[in-house]
């Protein structure tokens, strides 16, 4: 397989994952903006920071009004992470890697692009927003279904999944990076409960607020939430789950090509050292420092994958 093709599959999957994650972030932000108008601006700001586009937003707009932030996140071509920008990038990468995709997978990506372009032609009214966000998530599920249902389990598949989990790990870590301060005071003062709405927002932005209930019952503790998002290996958006999957896909690529890679070594270290736990030791070392170094490690892993498999010259 061409290095470029491998890179395009990896990025196609990253962008698709990003569009889904951003839809979740908007959903969670919108809920707070609706129910707590006093903290709306702060919440939107944290959504923008999580998506990595706060600077770009500030440069173009003055205040964090809901309508403006939503439009920026959904449709603004000046925002490289807007849903429209990202789905176009996903499709461009799919076109570049067209020969490595099944017809069904390609058509799913292309249909997603057509659907979202039509859906986001005009600014979205607030009362239409929940439906629009649902459609975005459904499109993503559609592509994932086609990919899993029709692609050969060869190198191309592993590159795509690698992109998916790298993007997802990055996203969950960014949410923690932006919200860690909410989790901290309650750890310092054991017994004080954290802000219910805020922790629910965190869980909602990874579609896991109900899963958490089933797992931990009514106990709302910062330690448990952090454990759930970082170390819990059955939770498909936790850092541990994502890193385990990356390690596995890299191991399969090693087998496929019969060549050991530095990328696998990095992923193995992430999965087995960084995510070994327990959660208390992560808090002891400082949650913020932990998340920052995790983000650094995943960025290094992404660069190593690119080098090992010659995505670019």
């Amino acid at each position, binding site marked *: *397989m*061409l290095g470029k093709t491998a890179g395009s599959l990896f990025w196609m999957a990253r962008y698709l994952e990003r569009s889904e994650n951003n839809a979740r972030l908007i959903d969670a932000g919108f809920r707070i903006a609706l129910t707590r108008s006093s903290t709306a601006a702060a919440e939107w700001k944290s959504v923008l920071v999580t998506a990595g586009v706060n600077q770009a937003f500030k440069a173009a707009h003055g205040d964090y009004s809901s309508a403006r932030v939503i439009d920026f996140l959904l449709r603004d071509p000046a925002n490289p992470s807007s849903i429209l920008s990202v789905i176009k990038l996903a499709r461009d990468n799919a076109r570049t890697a*067209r020969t490595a995709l099944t017809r069904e997978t390609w058509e799913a990506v292309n249909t997603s692009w057509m659907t979202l372009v039509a859906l986001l032609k005009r600014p979205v009214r607030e009362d239409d927003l929940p439906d629009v966000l649902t459609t975005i998530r459904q499109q993503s599920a559609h592509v994932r279904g086609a990919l899993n249902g029709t692609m050969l389990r060869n190198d191309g598949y592993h590159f795509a999944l690698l992109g998916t989990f790298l993007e997802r790990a990055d996203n969950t870590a960014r949410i923690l990076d932006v919200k860690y301060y909410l989790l901290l005071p309650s750890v310092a003062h054991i017994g004080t409960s954290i802000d219910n709405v805020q922790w629910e927002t965190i869980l909602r932005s990874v579609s896991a607020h109900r899963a958490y209930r089933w797992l931990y019952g009514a106990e709302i503790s910062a330690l448990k939430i952090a454990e759930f998002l970082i170390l819990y290996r059955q939770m498909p958006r936790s850092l541990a789950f994502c890193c385990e999957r990356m390690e596995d896909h890299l191991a399969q690529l090693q087998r496929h090509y019969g060549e050991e890679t530095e990328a696998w070594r990095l992923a193995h270290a992430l999965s087995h050292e960084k995510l070994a736990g327990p959660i208390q030791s992560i808090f002891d070392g400082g949650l913020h420092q932990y998340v920052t170094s995790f983000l650094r490690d995943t960025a290094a892993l992404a660069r190593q994958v690119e080098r090992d498999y010659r995505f670019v010259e």
Partner: protein
Amino acid sequence: MLRGKGRRISFFDEMTSQEGGTRSPYREYCGWFEAEDATRIQRKAQQAEALFRTTGITFNVYGAADGDERLIPFDVVPRIISASEWRRLSRGIEQRVRALNAFLHDIYHRQEILRAGRVPTDLIAGNEAFLPMMMGLDPPGGIYTHISGTDIVRTGADEFYVLEDNARTPSGVSYMLENRETMLQMFPELFAKVPVREVSDYPINLLKSLAACAPPACGGTPTVAVLTPGIHNSAYYEHSFLADHMGAELVEGHDLRVIDGRVAMRTTQGYKAIDVVYRRVDDDFLDPLNFRPDSMLGVPGIWDVYRAGGITIANAPGTGIADDKALYSYMPDIIEFYTGEKALLPNVPTWRCSDPEHLREVLDRLPELVVKEVHGSGGYGMLVGPAASKKELAAFRAKLEANPGNYIAQPTLSLSTVPIFTKKGLAPRHVDLRPFVLMSPQGVTITPGGLTRVAMTKGSLVVNSSQGGGTKDTWVLED
């Protein structure tokens, strides 16, 4: 054949004869069509459009806004060619393609045809499409035109003309294949009623044909790659389609580099040599070291590898001289010179505006002629006299007088019509035909049929997709 001033002339319709009866190749189809419910066909036509969009068979129009992707209109009524008509056409096409290949070999070697005075020397020497670097070079297998597309128009029951020989990188073959695929999906029952010859083996024939031209440096099974300018090219869909259906890698210039005298592609496991490249970039852009230095599309040094027999480039560099419009008028001589036979398919009479006498005649009769740029393609920069306004005629006249050598002129042909399906029923529209021809040391393969392009607007004679033309599935009937 000429369209007289102010005189209405009738066009040859391929479905309905002048007497009003259905022509024989269309009998079974028309029987089916008459029994069909028009609203059902209407619905199918809409489905076809959705199908094309989902598949991504779209193209970018140069100069249009980003993301403004268009669909080439597809018409659900097939264009049908009888077995005997096709026999005649394919014989003529094969003769022509063989002659072109012989001409290219000669022009880049001993130039016998120039010595014999059958083609003027200055038409070659001063021609931008002539590539002096090809002199004395033997392309692997002796093949120059691995892939060509011969544009044919029909003006009567027995009148076919060759309009153009596309010997560089003819496009449209993916439409030929997808149109058939779409018809099979929409009207499977039709194919049980009408015996239509298959076209689906084109990609595998292309692969075999390219592999048969592997260079001396190839050891074992040849590795074939398709070279594309990238996703922003208007024909990108076709490039990826062909690569996908051949099981060949789709490469861009930046995926390739020259290593140890071979052209190699960057794979996930390092560089791997390729043997045959089906390039869909023009000569000028092939190699920035040897041609245009600003080209980002090609591979630095590929020319030197080619010269040394390290790679096959299809089509060979320099084939453009064979489909040059200034040379076109010499094709009957060229065919006779190399095959010893008269051309089986006639040329359209052509005035060369470089000739002062021809130019005078062209200027006199401008409103009734079609004038084309010698190096143009895609219907850009062309004048259709009868359809042009006074202002357009005057403007073109000025361009023509300023640079006559840049133009040729032809009579406005009364292209045959085939009906398209409209909301109000069947309506005749002008068509042309581009059959696709493969050539290798093992022989010439012509896919039965080809791409039928149709002018969707009533009365229009311009079938180019860049000018709003559409396409039809083309059926060649079994004997």
